């Protein structure tokens, strides 16, 4: 089930068939996700899901995100990279209007979801379509089943019974790659799972209601390399029916999972483009320094 090595770094060229970096064979049999998922890459990106136009966020006087414009497409993973404190989390949290919970945070600019201004949407409706996975795994203090069923229960008008929920919960856990590990202990407390399992449970919880966009804020920063590899593989599998935005300050990870990469620095969007361009032929000096590890 779990790949023994971390997924290989894939070097993808524009308009060229996906290749796997030489020297590392794709894992044999089972979920050959790394090679399988690679087929979805580049050129197949679907329609634009979210569009950010001149997005700014202020915490009081401090401008944490400055005039950022980006687009997020279906079937594509956008990796946000940049040093700590450059506004990645802030940018991500504005996409589902979670910054509104922070006293003193103010937003400027427009965010469109499928062409509709997110401010015009009911905030709960927006968050149902734009789900989020946090940096620290935060499963609720309930059973595994109840965690995944939480949003399903809350979003349906009539309380659905367990027989209705069970297949949906199973499906979500399967897509999050957790089913085989927990299928015999769905009623066990979620907080007894390991960190990596907890994070995948949070992913299952977020995708159970079939959102259109999945926001992930450094989902692997609290995890060991093995769990990280599992989650990266998972991102590759999920991207076909979702638009994913993942924040990371791990450049290797951005390179492995990202189709597009956006590099932020002190609130500015310095460079945005296909992953291979950002890593192999960065246009801006600051991007070049950052991806080469001069600072960060």
């Amino acid at each position, binding site marked *: 089930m779990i790949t023994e090595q971390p997924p290989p770094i894939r070097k993808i060229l524009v308009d060229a068939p996906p290749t796997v970096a030489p020297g590392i064979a794709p894992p044999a049999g089972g979920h050959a996700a790394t090679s399988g998922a690679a087929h979805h890459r580049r050129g197949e990106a679907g329609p634009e899901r979210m569009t950010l136009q001149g997005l700014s966020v202020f915490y009081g006087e401090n401008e944490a995100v400055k005039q950022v414009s980006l687009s997020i497409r279906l079937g594509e993973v956008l990796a946000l990279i940049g040093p700590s404190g450059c506004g990645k989390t802030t940018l991500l949290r504005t996409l589902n209007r979670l910054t509104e*919970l922070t006293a003193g945070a103010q937003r400027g600019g427009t965010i469109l979801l499928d062409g509709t201004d997110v401010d015009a949407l009911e905030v709960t409706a927006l968050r*149902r379509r734009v789900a989020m996975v*946090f940096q620290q795994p935060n499963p609720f203090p309930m059973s595994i089943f109840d965690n995944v069923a939480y949003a399903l229960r*809350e979003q349906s008008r009539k309380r659905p019974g367990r027989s209705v929920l069970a297949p949906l919960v199973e499906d979500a856990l399967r897509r999050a790659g957790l089913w085989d590990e927990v299928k015999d202990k769905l009623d066990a407390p*979620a907080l007894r799972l390991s960190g990596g399992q907890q994070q995948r449970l949070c992913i299952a919880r977020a995708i159970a209601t079939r959102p259109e966009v999945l926001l992930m804020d450094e989902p692997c920063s609290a995890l060991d390399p093995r769990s990280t590899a599992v989650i990266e593989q998972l991102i590759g599998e999920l991207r076909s029916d979702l638009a994913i935005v993942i924040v990371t300050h791990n450049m290797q990870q951005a390179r492995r999972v990202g189709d597009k990469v956006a590099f932020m620095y002190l609130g500015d969007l310095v460079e945005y483009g296909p992953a291979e361009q950002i890593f192999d032929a960065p246009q801006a000096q600051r991007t070049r320094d950052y991806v080469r590890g001069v600072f960060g």
Partner: protein
Amino acid sequence: MLHRLRQPWSDRRAELTLGALACAVLLVIVLMVVFVANEAWPTFQHNGLRWLFPGGNVDTQINTMVNAGAKPPAADYHLRAWPLVWGTILTTGLAVVFGLIFALLASIFIVEFAPDRLRAIIVPVVRLLAAVPSVIYGLLGILVLVPFVGNHIISAHDKKSVEFIVQLSGASLLVAVVILTVMIVPIMIAICVDALYAVPRGWKEGAVALGVNRWRAMWTVSIRAARPAIIAAAVLACARALGEAIMLSMVSGSVGFAPNPFDGPRLFLLEPLRPLASTIVEDSESLQAPAVRSTVYAFALLLLFSSLLLSLAGYLAKQPMKKYGVRS
């Protein structure tokens, strides 16, 4: 130089000392129960468990004991304490239920919805209110609420309809429950607010990010996670309500009467009563009479027993939650 520094206590020594202290406390509790039970024994010997049942006028029965003198005949131990027990159950139960509902709503408001400036005022005020001595609430009750209920809520018709059973004066179940609720609510709010603040922000944010509104997020995640503290608050409030004597004796009418729900909700609430704790205080002047003495100790035993049961129930209620990682 170094050897003259004070040696810290070893874990072992600390463990032994604390263990001894805990045992001593336990021993005191056991001795207290044994002593009270022993003193109460004659009452139960004469009445059996029927002591708890309704039957006759409890005030008359106690008066007979007071007048019985030093060597009471067996018949003078006769007591049916139901009205007092019922009065205790009613005042405590209703006040804790209303208090809990109110405290939950208030603490959700304070933690989640109140503007910062309002919160900065409310929280200290609530803590202050929790420290107000209960006599003061009793005074307010007797000076303000009792006359109000007596003059504006109880009609001549009400008085007439129960004229041969009990007198309606304004001091009533209603006033007792209202004042008791007001008395126990601040400490409940304070505990619930602290518990809700202690709920990790990640859980609340996680729920909100799933498209649940803030109210539902509070209710389904934060309150859930804070249940052990909420139960603790309810147990504490229950204990305070059970033991409240002076204030209730002031506002309840202090009549050994069991308010009767079949009189209709209105009359039920307007009827007077007297809980056990108040009865203990009021009868403590006549303790030289052996029958009274034994009876008062029986009341005490019942209260003691209830509070032990309460702690146990609180403890048991928390057990299933521990499993899911809800901290207590």
